């Protein structure tokens, strides 16, 4: 390790120590629009659930409610034990299609066991249940896991309540890369700097985030190990280093370097070794994004005169243009199933989140805002998280890929929030 690296590690640990003691901007979630056919669900209070100030069932209800796919049916204030007989007729008359009951029991070693069951009210049958062992500090994550169970049983697709998001909070003279639960709770700073941080990108393993820091007065790409709280330089060549995107196997990064003149696409191993050039153009090539099968890299280029989205085989080769409408299409992100592409499109001076069906080339503008940036798909493909501006302030927002469910996640207590990246499914 050379001297410069050692110094940067030392200053990094100093920063991490500094940020550990600070209160972090918390995100709140507001539901602006919801799906048309929401499933009515009741979640009864769990006996013994008040082991900390926040009730377990409030986490579950909030998760389900904010997904926009469920309508919460009031379950009253009586806690119902997990093995209680279900008053089917009563729940049917309240309009619930499904009912979750459960209980939290202390264990001999000071932890807790949460057991719960999900019932189908129409069929008067149990849909399943589970038992989870956890500490009091794992109450939120336990709630997210139960919400994921309910979501999957009722919609047939995996839930994302247990996943995490990363984003950048800018306050006066300070930039923080924060990691939070998908609902914005439990936010923690992974890295803080007085210089900008952009383009965070989760590794498929969920443990690492690549990002660009301007700490040394120029853009340098780092890979940050969240569990270890350490990072290493992935690209620090002469000129600018930016736009890291992970390959689906988590071994390589596509990124942009200017070392050979102009902003051009390269591939590099996650440890920074083995730099190879992917494409050559006379103009700008940037914002690479792998297709989920690893076959292609989608990217933004001005090779045709205006910024448009193109794709190239991940091994190099013929470039194909993907967007044709309008004079400004940037920031491509492929959906987890590889069938659609979220991107930012300029329409009459407004930058808006758009979605293209790649097979039919049909596009849909998903928002009515004007400063949308940096789309990021939930790992189940249902929601797209993006940055926008409301009242001059940077906020995160999310919209379902059918455009129906809309959420915003402003920071509580100020600061601009931007550059979201939705992490993978929890392993």
């Amino acid at each position, binding site marked *: 390790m050379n001297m410069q690296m050692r110094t940067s590690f030392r200053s990094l640990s100093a920063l991490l120590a500094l940020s550990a003691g600070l209160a972090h901007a918390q995100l709140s979630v507001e539901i602006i629009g919801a799906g048309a056919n929401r499933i009515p669900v009741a979640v009864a209070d769990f006996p013994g659930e008040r082991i900390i100030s926040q009730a377990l069932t409030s986490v579950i209800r909030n998760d389900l409610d904010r997904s926009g796919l469920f309508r919460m049916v009031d379950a009253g204030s009586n806690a119902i034990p997990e093995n209680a007989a279900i008053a089917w007729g009563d729940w049917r008359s309240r309009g619930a299609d499904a009912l979750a009951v459960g209980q939290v029991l202390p264990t001999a070693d000071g932890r807790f066991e949460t057991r719960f069951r999900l019932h189908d009210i129409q069929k008067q049958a149990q849909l399943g249940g589970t038992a989870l062992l956890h500490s009091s500090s794992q109450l939120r994550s336990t709630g997210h896991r139960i919400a994921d169970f309910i979501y999957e049983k009722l919609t047939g697709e995996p839930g994302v309540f247990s996943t995490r998001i990363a984003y950048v909070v800018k306050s006066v003279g300070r930039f923080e890369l924060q990691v939070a639960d998908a609902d914005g709770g439990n936010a923690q700073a992974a890295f803080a700097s007085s210089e*900008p941080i*952009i*383009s965070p990108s989760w590794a498929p393993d969920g443990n690492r985030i690549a990002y660009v820091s*301007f700490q*040394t*007065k*120029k*853009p340098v790409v780092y890979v940050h190990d969240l569990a270890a709280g350490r990072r290493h330089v992935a690209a620090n060549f*002469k*000129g*600018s280093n*930016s*736009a890291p995107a992970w390959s689906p196997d988590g071994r390589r990064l596509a990124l*942009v370097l*200017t070392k050979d*003149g*102009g*902003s051009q696409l390269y591939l590099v191993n996650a440890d920074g070794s083995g730099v190879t050039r992917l494409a050559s153009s006379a103009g*700008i090539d*940037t*914002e690479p994004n792998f297709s989920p099968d690893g076959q292609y890299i989608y990217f*933004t280029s001005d090779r045709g005169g205006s*910024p448009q989205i193109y794709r190239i085989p991940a091994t190099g080769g013929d470039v194909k243009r993907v967007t044709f409408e309008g004079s*400004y299409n*940037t*920031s491509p992100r492929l959906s987890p199933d590889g069938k659609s592409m979220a991107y*930012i499109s*300029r329409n009459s001076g407004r*930058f808006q989140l758009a979605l293209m069906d790649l097979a039919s080339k049909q596009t849909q503008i998903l928002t009515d805002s004007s400063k949308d*940036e*940096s789309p990021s798909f939930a790992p189940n493909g249902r929601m797209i998280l993006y940055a926008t501006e409301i009242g001059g302030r940077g906020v995160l927002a999310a919209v379902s890929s059918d455009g129906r469910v809309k959420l915003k996640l402003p920071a509580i207590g100020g600061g601009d929030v931007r*550059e979201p990246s939705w992490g993978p499914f929890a392993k």
Partner: protein
Amino acid sequence: MRRLFMLASLAFLAACSSQPPAPEQAGAGVEDRSPRDLGSVSPVGRDGLYSPDRLKDPKSVLYKREVFFDLDSYTIRDEFKPLLEAHAKFLQANAKYKMLIQGNTDERGSREYNLALGQKRAEAVRKALQLLGAREDQLEAVSVGKEKPRCGEASEECWAQNRRADILYSGEF
């Protein structure tokens, strides 16, 4: 080679003096007070005009470190050519000095695409300095895109101030 650079410089300056002032004057910090004797091609460094202490002298052209650009443009406006000529001479006279050129853009659009646009501005400055005799290994062109706006309002006047390349010398970055 050296003669070629001098000829290029002369042509550069001749072109400057015959041009009317640029119509679009961007924001603060670009008023023209370049000393007339900059037009000479006397051997660099001998008269002290390019000594390192001039970098911090508000009366020296070397104190000026900003190059402004037109909308969607990455070419150096004529009004900034004397400034770049002086900085190229400084780098020639002070061979151990290095320069970081930071490109900036206005706030509209994608962060990474703006980073690439800022890079084009920084590289335009780098190429001009190289053409004027600075060594490649003295120069690094980087971008900060729209990440460090000087002016935060959504107005054309403000955006013009952010379409800029900044010059930093060793010790300043």
